[in-house]
Structures are given as C-alpha cells and as structure tokens.
C-alpha cells in the first residue's frame, strides 16, 4: 500500500515489540472466520497499522461440520511499517476446532501462541480430524505456547441473557474470539459494535448477543491477564503495535475484486462511455459481476449470460453499439472465449477481458491461486492474434490497471486482457483512495460525420486505430465481420498482399501500444545488479520483501516488477541485459520466463511454485541465495 517501503522482519520470536505480527483465525466453514478476519482487519487498519491478508476457504460450499476439508482460515499480517505479504508463519493461531488445529498448526512458528477452543475437542470432532488422541492433552503441541479455552462454554454463558437457542448462541463464538483478539492488540471495540448493530438492525437481540460475546472475550483477556492465568503453557499478553507511517489521506480496505470493479467504472467514466459487463459466474471471478451489478447508476449494465461465449460475444456486440464492452472469467471460462477474442481483434473493437486466475489445468483448484494463464493470455488464440495484456500486483494496483486496460482498449480499438488472481481477488489491504479529479481523462470520440469521398471504416490514425462508428449514426452504414478485411475499406478481401498487410497492421498497432507506456522502472536496487529478480502479478509482495532482506544482507540484488506483459516496455530489454543473472519467480511452471527469453535472449531462470499458495518470503530468499552463490 501507499507507505514508505520498509522491510518485513523474519518474525521476531516474541510478539512483544515486534514490528509486525501474523495472526491466523481458523475454524469450521460455519464458524464465520472470514467475517472475524474481516472485522479484525478493519480494526487493524483503524489502528493505523499497515496490513495484508490471506483468506483461504474450502472449495466446498458448506462442507460437513468438523471435517478437515471444511476448515476456513483467515490470516493477517500487520505492523508498524509497510506490510506487503500476509506473512510466512503465524505468530498466533486461533483454532476453533480439532480440524482447524490439525490443518493449520504446522504453519505456526516454533514458540508461537496457539489458542484452541477446548470445548470443541470432543471425541466426534477429534475423529473427524483423524486425531487418535487429544492434541491439547497429549503434549504433541509442545513446541508452541498452547492456550486452551472453552470458548464455546464461555460464549454460551455470555449470551445466556438473550435466550437464544443453543445453535444461535454458539454462532456468537467468533465474536467472543474477536473480542479476545481485540484485547490482545489493544483495539477499540466501538467500530465493530457499530457494524454489528447495523448488520443485525432487524434482529436486535442477535446484535446484542454478539456484542455481549465480543465484550466477554475482551473482558476475558483483561481478567486472564490480571490473574496471570496462563494455562497449558500459553500465556495471554497484550500490547499495542504502533501505527505505520503512511501518506496522509483517506483510506479504506479493499479487495482485488472490489478495486477492479471500481477501476472499470472509473475507466468507463474517464472514457465517457456507458459500460456493458457480460459475465458468467465462476470462482473467483464472480465477485466482479456481483459488485458491478450494484452500480447501475454509473451507467453500468450487467448481463449474466448463458455461458462464457455469450458473455464475451454480448460484450463485443455492446462495444460495436458504442458501449464499453467488458467480460470477466477464470481459466476454463477464458479458454472458451478464445475464438471470440479473435473476432474482437479482427473487427478491432474495444473490449476488456478480466481473468481472475485460479489453479489449473481444467477445473483444477477453483479456490486456490495461480499465475498459470499467462500463456493463454498472450498466445492462446488461433491465427496471428496479438492482444495487450496487463497484470495487477495487488488490490490497490488492480484499480489503476483496470483504468489502464480501458484506456488501451479505447485508444487502440482492441481487446485487452487484464490478469489478476484468486489471491488478489480475495485479499484485503488498506487503500489510499485517490482524488478522482487527479485521474487523467481519455474521452472517446465516435465518427459521426460522413467523410468526403467513400466511408473507410478501416482507415487509420497515427496510432493505427480505426474509427469507432456506432450503428444508429445517420449515413454511416457499413458492414464488418470476422473474415479478413480489405485495407481501409473493411470489405471482405481474400487477396494475398492484403492479408500480409493487415496482419502486419494488427501486429504493429499492438506493438505501438508500448509508445504509450512509461519506461520500466526498478522496484528495488539498480540496473547492473548481480541478480535481477523479475516478477509480475501478485508475487510482488514476497519478491519485494525477499529482495529487501537480501539487500540488507549486503547482496547486490534488484527487483523488477513487470505490469505490462504485452507489449513489454521499450526499455525492458536493456534493463534485463544489465543484470549478471536473472530469475523469474512465478506461480506456474515458467510462463513469463518464455516471453522474456524469446524477446530479449536473456538467460532468465524460472523459480516456480504451483501449490495453489502464494510464495513465502523465505522461499524467494532461498532462491536468491542459490542464484548468487
């Protein structure tokens, strides 16, 4: 986010005085961990800490209660300085049941604090988690500080006055837990109390019960501390993490799905166009459809199509009719859109295609994150079909990437692919809200006047862009389509020379987009470093932090983050060639690496992770060390 960059320490053995703390909430899908995490995130932001989060939920809608695959977790890394990753190892784990403990405890740093709701550690739940014996009793958690609390019971006691059924009552567990967490880090409960009141405005007693649980959890921290109560090795302590120095301004938390939606709306307005969004639900892309469908007052029409092909072709139709056509999906759905992208390329109509990447191939890992659709984005169409590709690196960046995608689409009359991924889509981070008046406008002008002489729908301006002519414009009737077009006229044309020329025009027009791009900058370090670490997309955080660490350790390393995947910035080649060595960490088997090696003949070495999980800082630090020795 918009803070003066500082480094994330490898987690300090004792939270006390640490620059940053990593907390993970883990429980059953039904336990509301994502909600808890979300509210804790807000209070963290309000406390002025910088932060990054990583929500990790199961593929199942609502997996059977207590099962291992039903565990839902939310991790947050916050600190008194710039935070760019969700953190490698949690310092604190709050486990609401045995399954949550089993699937998460190994990630906790040795000596970290583990808080478990012992009320949930009965035989049935232990069996469901495939525990032969109770880990809270058998000493198997020795290397962590264990704190057993009967959160279930404590919650029931706290909400008894409101006469809820047992089921409803237990639903308040997460607020009790949140209350405890707020106490641990000296947070103000008020904003959350307000949020609960508005959320349950129609159900006052539910609101009250939740507030009571929240307060009880908080109070428990107080008293436990006073009584020095540190059962089971674990010891409750609380402390405040100082605010992170941040640029002055107005902030909010935002997820990638939100910021892309906002960016697209902003882009359409900067272009002066109504927006048509054609989508078909798919995880994790659906959220964008959901957000936009609430923004009709911004001239947004959303269309849930019968499939991805209808979604993109309807968007193409809308662009043809003078709207800004947008479509969005994830891997399998994007694959289905390939043929239609070719039509948009041939008819030279503006279009933005958002790909929220997920684990592949095929259905793959719908709820996990990956960067494995880059090949598809750059190369995945029949014929010579060049298309600009932009990749967002964070929720904040996604806002500006979306605007950029719209700009290129309308200024060059071309489809543009915007790459994001499951991690960015779901992760929340503080965002310094821009002043919209500072955003550069790029108003579109349609052709409306009959020109002298013949109408030439495929004539070109200096950018090689053809005119955009809306049906309904008096006198400018013409026909376009997917068959090769005659130069200028746009008539069907099968001639050899014409096809050669048009193919070159399509290629050169897209390469020309680079003229409108800023030079490639260096995120860290300088040209000529011994090692260049080249990244794209959501790996920015871990790479950046890893390079910071390496530099601190005195190593001559640089970090280059590529946002424009195609066309590439004009100076990128020289920059890359200035490094002695180059590594390209990617959450795929090496896709950006192919483009860099092809374009610049540089020996870019792949560093790959395809586990559905983001890189840890440590993994990249290791890769850096290996490549420097």
């Amino acid at each position: 986010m918009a803070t003066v960059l500082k480094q994330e320490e490898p987690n300090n053995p004792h939270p006390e005085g640490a620059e940053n703390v990593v907390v993970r909430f883990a429980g059953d899908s039904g336990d509301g961990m994502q909600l808890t995490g979300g509210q804790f995130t807000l209070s963290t932001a309000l406390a002025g800490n910088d932060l990054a989060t990583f929500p990790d939920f199961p593929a199942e809608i609502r997996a059977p209660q207590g099962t291992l695959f039903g565990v839902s977790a939310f991790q947050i890394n916050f600190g008194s300085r710039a935070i760019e990753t969700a953190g490698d190892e949690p310092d604190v784990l709050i486990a609401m049941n045995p399954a949550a403990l089993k699937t998460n405890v190994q990630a906790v740093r040795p000596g970290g604090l583990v808080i478990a709701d012992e009320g949930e550690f009965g035989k049935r739940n232990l069996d469901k988690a495939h525990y032969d014996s109770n880990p809270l009793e058998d000493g198997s958690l020795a290397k962590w500080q264990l704190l057993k609390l009967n959160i279930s019971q404590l919650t029931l006691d706290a909400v008894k006055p409101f006469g809820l059924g047992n089921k409803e009552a237990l639903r308040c567990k997460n607020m009790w837990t949140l209350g405890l967490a707020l106490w641990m880090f000296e947070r103000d409960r008020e904003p959350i109390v307000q949020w609960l009141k508005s959320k349950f405005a129609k159900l006052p007693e539910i609101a009250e019960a939740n507030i009571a649980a929240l307060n009880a959890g908080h109070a428990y921290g107080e008293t436990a501390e006073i009584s020095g109560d540190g059962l089971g090795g674990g010891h409750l302590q609380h402390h405040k993490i100082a605010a992170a120095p941040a640029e002055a301004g107005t902030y909010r938390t935002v997820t990638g799905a939100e910021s892309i939606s906002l960016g697209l709306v902003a882009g359409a307005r900067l272009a002066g166009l109504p927006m048509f969004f054609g989508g078909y639900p798919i995880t994790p892309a659906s959220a964008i459809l959901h957000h936009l469908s609430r923004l009709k007052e911004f001239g947004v029409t959303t269309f849930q199509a019968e499939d991805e092909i209808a979604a993109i072709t309807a968007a193409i139709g809308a662009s043809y009719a003078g709207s800004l056509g947008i479509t969005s999906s994830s891997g399998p759905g994007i694959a289905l859109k390939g043929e239609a992208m070719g039509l948009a390329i041939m008819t030279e109509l503006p279009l933005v295609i958002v790909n929220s990447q997920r684990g592949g191939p095929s259905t793959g890992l719908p709820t996990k994150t990956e960067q494995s659709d880059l090949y598809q984005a750059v190369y995945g169409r029949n014929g010579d079909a060049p298309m600009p590709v932009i990749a967002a690196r964070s929720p904040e960046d996604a806002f500006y990437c979306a605007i950029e995608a719209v700009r290129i689409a309308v200024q060059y009359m071309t489809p543009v692919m915007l790459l994001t991924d499951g991690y960015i889509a779901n992760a929340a981070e503080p965002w310094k809200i821009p002043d919209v008046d500072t955003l550069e406008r790029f108003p579109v002008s349609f052709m409306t006047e009959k020109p002298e002489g013949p109408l030439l729908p495929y004539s070109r301006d200096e950018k090689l862009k053809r005119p955009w002519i809306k049906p309904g414009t008096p006198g400018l009737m013409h026909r376009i389509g997917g068959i090769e077009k005659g130069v200028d006229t746009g008539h069907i044309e099968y001639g050899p020379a014409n096809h050669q020329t048009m193919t070159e025009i399509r290629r050169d027009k897209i390469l020309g987009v680079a003229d409108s791009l800023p030079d490639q900058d260096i995120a860290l370090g300088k040209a000529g470093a011994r090692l260049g670490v080249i990244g794209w997309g959501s790996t920015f955080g871990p790479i950046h932090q890893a390079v910071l660490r390496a530099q601190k350790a005195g190593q001559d390393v640089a970090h280059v983050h590529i946002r424009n995947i195609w066309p590439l910035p004009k100076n990128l080649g020289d920059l890359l060639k200035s490094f002695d060595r180059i590594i390209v960490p990617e959450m795929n088997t090496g896709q950006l690496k192919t483009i860099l090696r092809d374009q610049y003949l540089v020996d870019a070495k792949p560093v790959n992770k395809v586990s559905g999980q983001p890189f840890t800082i440590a993994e990249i630090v290791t890769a850096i060390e290996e490549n420097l020795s």
Partner: protein
Amino acid sequence: MNEMTKITTTLKDWETDQEVRWCPGCGDYAILKAVQRTMPDLGADPSNTVFISGIGCSSRFPYYMETYGFHTIHGRAPAIATGVKLANPELDVWIITGDGDALSIGGNHTMHLLRRNLDCQLMLFNNEIYGLTKGQYSPTSRQGTHSPSTPYGSVDRPASPCAFALGAGARFVARGIDIHKGLPDVLKAAHAHKGTSFIEIFQNCIVYNKDVFEEFAAKKTADDTQLHLLNGEPMLFAKGQKGITLNRKTLQLEVVDVVDGDWESAGVIVHDVTNRSVAHMLVEMQFGAFPMALGVLYDDPRPTFEAAVVAQNVASSAGKKPDLQGLLNKGQTWTVTEDGPEL
C-alpha cells in the same frame, strides 16, 4: 421491434454495392429481395437498422443490405445481438442465421434469446444442410440424408425449429418459404411483434439439397400441401374442402373433409394466434398426414428483455447520482494525518 419514426425509402436504398456471392439459383436471393422489398413498407430507417449474422451462406446476408451489419462468428449472432440491443434499445435488430448456425453450434444462444425475449427478428434460413461447408447434413436434415459426412445416410432424428422455439419459450413463431409471395407479410407481422420473432424460412440450397421442400413448396400442389394460417380464420386448405380439427376423444389433431363450406359442423379449428396449446400441435403436425402449416403460427407478446433491463437500470438508479468519488469512499474509511489515523 421498437417504436420508431417511420421514414420513406425505396427498395434501391436497401441494396449495397457488394457483388452478391451466392450460387446462381440459391433461395437466398429470393429472401434478400423479399426483405429489401419489405423494409420500405415498414418505414424502417437504414441508419437505425442492424443485421447481425453468424457464419454460413445465409449469414452473408448483411453484406447485401445497406444498413449496419455484423457478420460475426458461427452460432453466436443471438448473443451478439443481445449485447447490441442492450447497449442501444432504439436499434431495429435483425438476426440472420441458418439451420446449422442457429440450431447446431448456436442452439444454446437461440434458446436463451427466445427465453429472455429480446426484441428482434430472427430469420432462420432452413435449407436442411450445411451449405457453406459444402453439403454436410444438419440438425434439420431428414433421417437418411446422404451427405459427405453421412455417405450411408444420416441416422439422427431431425430437430423441428419451430417446436424447439416454442419449447424455449418463443412468443412469436412463423413459417415461410423463400420464393413465396407470402413472405413479406410474415416479415411484417414479425416486425410488428414486440419481442423475439422467430421465423423459419424454407430455403432451397440448389447445390447441396436441391428441392427438398418441393413436396409442399411446389406451386401446383400448394393447395393440398399448404395450410395458410390466418388469425381468426378457420384452418382450411385444399380450396376449403379440408380442414384441421381436434379429435375431442384422442385429443390429437386430425384432417377432416369440409362439405360445401360448412367447416363449423366439421369442427374445424379457428386459428387463434395466442393459443399456445394449439401452437404446439401445429408445429408438430407431421407433413404427409397433414399439410405444412405456414404463416404466423403463434403470436402472444410478453414484456421484452431489454425493456425490463432498462427499467431496472432506471429504477435502481433513481435518486442516486453517479458520484465516483463517493463510490470510492464507500464503506468504513479513515484518514491519516500527521498525528495518525482517525475514523
């Protein structure tokens, strides 16, 4: 189609300078002329008219109409038309498609276009063959059709375009024949209908499926083989000597003889274009035992998709102003000043 200010044009105004590239004798020529002849009668405005097609011989149609035209990709014209119409509901949208384009690769989009009831005219040129790809059988080809891909005859049962359309929720279903003088009237009724007007046109592919429709399209036998439907009129054919009735016991349609014009006592059905039950029976009438039903089989409008979308866009925007800054600032925000953050 939509309300529009009628304007005056002549047939010539609807012709382009492009050389027409269909086989000599192709039924598509007749349909093209019929459309070009009809447009002036509709008071249509070339500048406000869009012809959208998929891929196929039939789909070359837009190149020959002096209107806006989009020759898209195979099977997707209905989806593209949906985007066009939602982006500008004022446009008069025509979809031109073939039996392969609309019912094979494009079946799903055709179904959803009809379900949603987008206001447009869909003209399906049914020649029971894939013309452009040189004659393979199509989903409407009769069983036993010999084609390059079915040298021993096709085995699958053909789809009935009109039955499919009704099953998908169509509110207007009509049938015509390429060279028939009745075609313009069908086009006018379709254009007058608000919502998706589904028009099946029997089109003669003289190269790959010559005269497959002769048995009922032939002029000389037309009286006995064609049932021309007119709303409010009895279902009579064979110069009024035969009619269609519903057997009140078997609850199936039957052909009855009409003696000296007394169709009432013969129980001949009076065509009611809004009767969906009868429409289902008409589209499934097997030619042979029955005549071929032509004209407007069904016409019972419902609210259109784009109208509903626009209405909701307006209603849900009412009272809200598109304040981008306000949108960005939504939710719980805080400001950072020299002395730290605050709500």
